């Protein structure tokens, strides 16, 4: 397959609010995905990352209000009419959802489900769409695709279903793929297979990928750049390698510290407290109530998203003092 030029996605000051602006669930998020690039967003559940993806697709739940802009190439998706947006979905932007157990229609044969995507986005004959569906099933690694295409979703395992979901997302050849926790519902071994598949297909198709996950390992396996999201806003952003090895925000440090891989068998460290409710945010830094480094200045006013080094941004005014936090955490871990 030929590699097509994909377009740059620029999300600028995106805010998604409910209850006529009282609950801001995505707050002032700006990010860019270059053509063919893979970008990951890490955050806890409830941090607004899934909603951000749905905003890009134009599929926000009823009652959500969007401000800011989402540009793909020279189009502003946030101002596109319902019809134009609909034409774009699937063919230019497609999405892979979290739970393959529920993302497939139980009464549709999987081959028909994939063929439907093909035929709804171009004038193709029924048999050509069927052939394309079987080809896609082979590409996502389903053996015996011709006969399996006549099976129903419940006759597949979770991993196989996620492959079918991916095949559906790719069927109309999108240039931007959004993935919302694509492996969270799967076990670890299947997870690795699906991630490899996504990575391979992205390269083959020359797609851009915007991946959202709570799992640093998943994001760093696939993505060149990573953003960390907390309480609806980006708190840190940079190359995946850098963010992992030298985080520039107390939240990221706490998050990485609480991974089982990071600990040496003792009690897992955790971040005290819990994320704030969208309608009940601290005046200054949203993380300040849980942050060990917080000083009065942190609580006074919103913290800007400052560029620390080229390509590295952090929403922490104490970036220079983070070594202290790292040392404390290391000492605590050693002390048991």
């Amino acid at each position, binding site marked *: 397959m030929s590699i097509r030029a994909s377009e740059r996605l620029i999300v600028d000051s995106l805010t998604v609010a409910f209850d006529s602006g009282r609950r801001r669930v995505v707050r002032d998020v700006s990010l860019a995905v270059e053509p063919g690039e893979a970008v990951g967003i890490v955050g806890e559940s409830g941090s607004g990352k899934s909603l951000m993806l749905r905003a890009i697709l134009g599929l926000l739940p009823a009652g959500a209000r969007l401000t800011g802009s989402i540009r793909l190439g020279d189009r502003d998706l946030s101002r596109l009419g319902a019809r134009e947006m*609909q034409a774009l979905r699937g063919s230019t932007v*497609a999405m892979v959802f979290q739970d393959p157990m529920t*993302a497939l*229609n*139980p*009464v549709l044969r999987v081959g028909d489900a994939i063929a439907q*995507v093909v035929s709804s986005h171009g004038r193709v004959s029924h048999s050509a769409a069927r052939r394309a569906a079987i080809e896609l099933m082979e590409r996502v690694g389903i053996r015996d695709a011709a006969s399996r295409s006549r099976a129903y979703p419940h*006759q597949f395992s979770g991993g196989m279903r996620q492959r079918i979901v991916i095949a559906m997302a790719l069927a109309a050849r999108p240039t931007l793929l959004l993935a919302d926790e694509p492996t969270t519902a799967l076990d670890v071994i299947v997870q690795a297979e699906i991630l490899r598949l996504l990575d391979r297909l992205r390269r083959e198709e020359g797609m851009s990928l915007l991946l959202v996950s709570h799992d640093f390992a998943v994001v760093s396996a696939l993505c060149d750049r990573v953003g960390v999201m907390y309480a609806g806003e980006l708190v840190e952003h940079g190359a995946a390698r850098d963010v992992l090895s030298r985080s520039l925000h107390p939240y990221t440090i706490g998050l990485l510290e609480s991974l089982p891989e990071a600990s040496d068998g003792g009690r897992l460290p955790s971040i005290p407290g819990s994320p704030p409710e969208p309608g009940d945010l601290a005046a200054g830094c949203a993380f300040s109530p849980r942050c060990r480094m917080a000083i009065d200045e942190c609580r006074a006013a919103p913290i800007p998203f400052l560029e620390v080094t080229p390509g590295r941004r952090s929403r922490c005014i104490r970036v220079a003092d983070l070594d202290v936090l790292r040392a404390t955490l290391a000492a605590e871990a050693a002390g048991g």
Partner: protein
Amino acid sequence: MMVAMPLGRSVPARVAFGAWRFATAPSWTRRIGLIGIVAITLLAILAPLVSPYDPTALNTGLGLTPPSLAHPFGTDQLGRDVFARVLYGARIDLQIGAIGVAIPLVIGVIVGLIAGYYGGWLDVLIGRVIDIVVAFPFFVLVIAIVAMLGPGLVNFYIAVSLVSWVAYARIVRGETLVAKRREYVLTARSLGYRDARIMFRHILPNVVAPTFVFGMSDFVLDILAGASLGFFGLGVPTPTPEWGVMIAEGRNFIITAPWVVIFPGLAIVVVGFFFSLLGDSLADQVRRVDPR
């Protein structure tokens, strides 16, 4: 798994809706219901082969003879063979049931899908219309409409269609409200499908099964309504055999010649019995099938 499959057969729930699997499912109520309905339908179609008599042929010399070998159900006041009339009546009454279910089902499913899927003011409007129709008893409204339009089968179908679509619309609206929140609908939308495609190709197959269950009991209700209208003189024109009309005409002789009313009455009961059995087993299937 929450549900143990009977007889250890792993019938995949949704797939079991295929016609063959459906007919061979291990359920006695369904077998008896299906066999009964098929038998009655065959008797209706093959009526000329089953009974040698013409259901409308008058034979005044033989009025009100009791059941005998020659006339197993006896004859009515005009000497017509009651057995032949019951057989030919099945044609009309089964047609009343089938059409009286099919038209409202299609209307109700479409309206219910639209109301449930779009919601908002459209849903409110449709909901009000449904409330208004439901506020009147079924029979009263059907009789009122037929009385306005005049007797006859076509007007009866119009009346039933105007009244009983609301039940199907309600069922489908409720199911659609649940189904449209399912993730596969979000998937469908994320793939850029038009609303019509999402409604009719993705949601419809998931919500339509309960309407078939209701349709089975509605079938019986429609036959009863048709018979009642016939009884009131608002049904099928007289020479045509129809069970309700037969009962209405025979009621004057209920003491002296009870067979004239008993047999068409029994026919209604038997048809109702078989359809109820089938509907019951269908309801079981829908309940077992649903992952909810």
